[in-house]
């Protein structure tokens, strides 16, 4: 049995890295167990001629297709939105696009303002210093002065507009609608040892330049230098309890598949909105027959995925194609609730440039735009680099029946029960998706695009995994308290997207990491009384 540690973190992704770094200055003995390994940027797809092809193989965003040894299968047959992730040091930030909006102040007060879902037990002001700290650690590029947010600033200037951004921006101006350069974790300048973005544009499949802030190259090097230990290829099966009902440690399988036990004073779960409930539900005991920390029955429930309405069209001149970071602008015009609409809450648009030569060919063939035969070449030349588009990221409200449970049959490579997803789109989401599609068509028309198409909702877009171990003041309907500590097990903490009470209508990682830093800070403030 290994020596006990003070703090054991499960998962080395966006939130695990942030919490490890923040706690490092306590000089406690901190260990992180991660089921994946370190990535080698020199082997990322953008370094080879098969760069686009690999998104259909070893860099597929779905673990069910990718099937790498670090992956676990997910039964998402009963969901119109499929779960996507990455399992490695850096977690899903290896694949994320680095689009980095914060949630809005109103997102913490959904029940009070709009009479739906629940309020958070914290507010925007609580997270504000942690948003700023995280922006500095991740290295955010952006532009101050956005009327969609309370004042904030970014350490680097924004991504270039390019031809696509300028065309979309001009269209938005004619419509009188809000747009702004997106906050992004793609470094526009050399930053803290990271090279600036050179527009490889294949951001979603690992950044070979190191310009995209995945946590393997931001938080982790600093956390390791500060003394945190990171053990890779270690998959945690369950968290065990001692006779006092406190977490005793974890059982995990090491690199060789050998079962190990690691004792810890404090356990922090950072395995994401699907991995975390899976682990808690797999951790059964006499005291918690329905899963650890689950006396409320809320573990795994309220899964929120952000349905995406994707819409794109083609203009009559070549624009940036995929020769720049895909996401460059956002619009918050339709973010806040408007009683004149037939849905509550709202969405942002993330606006996108074009796609690569192969992706254009494949998606256009699948959509029936690109024919077989002699006309293929003429049609294709009017599509490639002529595409612009956007996606509405729709706020998903928490619903108890949208949930993560354990699949009775499916298991991972270590024989651990795999998660099963049951998820349906609500009527509110459907209406919001339809609104997002209609407004996107207005924008594209105004930008001179024709031949518009898209996906509603995007199927392989379960990238925002939220709400499955939510925070709250009431132990009867929440899993952790207002600073991330389990109501049931006083030395168990959760720091990932599972904590979200509501989802907001923005990409969540900025908020996930701000929450992780906030939980770490709350722990540090209370070290002497942590378990009281």
């Amino acid at each position: 049995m290994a020596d006990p540690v003070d703090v054991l973190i499960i998962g080395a992704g966006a939130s695990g890295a942030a919490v490890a770094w923040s706690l490092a200055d306590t000089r406690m003995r901190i260990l992180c167990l991660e089921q994946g390994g370190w990535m080698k940027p020199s082997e990322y797809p953008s370094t080879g001629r098969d760069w686009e092809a690999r998104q259909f193989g070893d860099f597929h965003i779905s673990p069910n297709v990718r099937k790498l040894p670090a992956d676990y299968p997910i039964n998402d047959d009963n969901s119109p939105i499929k779960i996507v992730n990455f399992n490695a040091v850096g977690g899903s930030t290896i694949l994320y696009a680095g689009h980095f909006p914060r949630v809005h102040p109103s997102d913490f007060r959904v029940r009070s303002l709009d009479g739906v879902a629940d309020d958070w037990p914290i507010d925007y002001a609580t997270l504000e210093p942690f948003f700023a700290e995280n922006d500095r650690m991740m290295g955010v590029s952006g532009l101050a002065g956005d009327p969609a947010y309370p004042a904030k600033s970014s350490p680097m200037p924004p991504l270039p507009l390019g031809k696509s951004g300028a065309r979309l921006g001009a269209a938005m101006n004619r419509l009188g609608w809000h747009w702004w350069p997106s906050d992004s974790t793609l470094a526009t300048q050399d930053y803290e040892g990271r090279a600036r973005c050179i527009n490889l544009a294949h951001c979603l499949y690992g950044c070979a330049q190191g310009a995209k802030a995945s946590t393997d190259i931001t938080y982790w090097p600093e956390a390791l230098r500060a003394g945190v230990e990171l053990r890779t290829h270690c998959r945690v099966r369950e968290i065990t309890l001692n006779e006092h009902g406190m977490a005793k440690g974890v059982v995990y399988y090491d690199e060789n598949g050998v079962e190990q036990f690691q004792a810890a004073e404090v356990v922090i779960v950072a395995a994401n909105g699907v991995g975390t409930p899976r682990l808690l539900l797999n951790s059964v005991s006499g005291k918690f027959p329905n899963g650890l920390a689950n006396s409320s029955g809320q573990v795994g429930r309220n899964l929120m995925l952000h349905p995406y309405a994707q819409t794109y069209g083609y203009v009559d001149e070549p624009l940036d194609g995929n020769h720049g970071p895909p996401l460059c602008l956002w619009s918050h015009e339709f973010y806040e609730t408007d009683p004149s609409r037939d849905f509550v809450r709202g969405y942002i648009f993330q606006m996108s440039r074009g796609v690569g030569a192969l992706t254009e060919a494949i998606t256009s063939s699948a959509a029936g735009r690109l024919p077989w035969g002699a006309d293929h070449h003429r049609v294709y030349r009017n599509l490639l680099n002529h595409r612009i588009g956007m996606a509405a990221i729709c706020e998903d409200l928490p619903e108890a029946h949208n949930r993560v449970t354990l699949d009775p049959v499916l298991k991972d490579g270590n024989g651990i029960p795999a998660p099963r997803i049951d998820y349906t789109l609500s009527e509110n989401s459907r209406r919001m998706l339809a609104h997002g599609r209609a407004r996107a068509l207005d924008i594209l028309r105004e930008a001179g695009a024709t031949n518009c198409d898209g996906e509603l909702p995007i199927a392989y877009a379960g990238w925002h995994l939220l709400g499955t171990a939510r925070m709250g003041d009431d132990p009867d309907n929440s899993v952790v308290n207002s600073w991330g500590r389990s109501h049931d097990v006083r030395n168990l903490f959760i720091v990932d997207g599972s904590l979200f009470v509501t989802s907001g209508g923005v990409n969540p990682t900025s908020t996930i990491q701000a929450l992780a830093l906030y939980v770490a800070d709350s722990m540090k403030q209370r070290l002497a009384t942590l378990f009281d």
Partner: protein
Amino acid sequence: MDTLNPSEQRDLQRLAAMMIPASAEYGVPGADDPAIFADIIRSLGRDLPSARAALAALAEGGPFADLAAEKAEALAASLRTTPDLLVLHRLVLLCYYRDDRVMRSLGQEPRPPFPKGHVVEQGDWSLLDPVRARPPIWRPA
């Protein structure tokens, strides 16, 4: 290494030419071009079972490569949206749209994105002026 047998390869080559024929007008080879076709065969990998199944469906009434043009067109069209043929089509596209000659004909440099990257113009930031002038649009809470 497991791969397609010669008759499957002959059928696939015909199918590839139907999907993307050579074009004198655009100065590009077809997907049945020997170099592109060799890439397709080399890249079967995970897609081999689907490729086999798609080709088996096409060859049910005899070798697809030997069918008269009209019959071949009709048969391929009837199977075009089956999952296995979609996989095979994707494989053909992914080898075609990385061939140097094809990429040059599209004005694309035949290279991976890294390390050279690309250049994106800054654009005219004064476009933002009307948005800057707006009052806050977030709801205080």
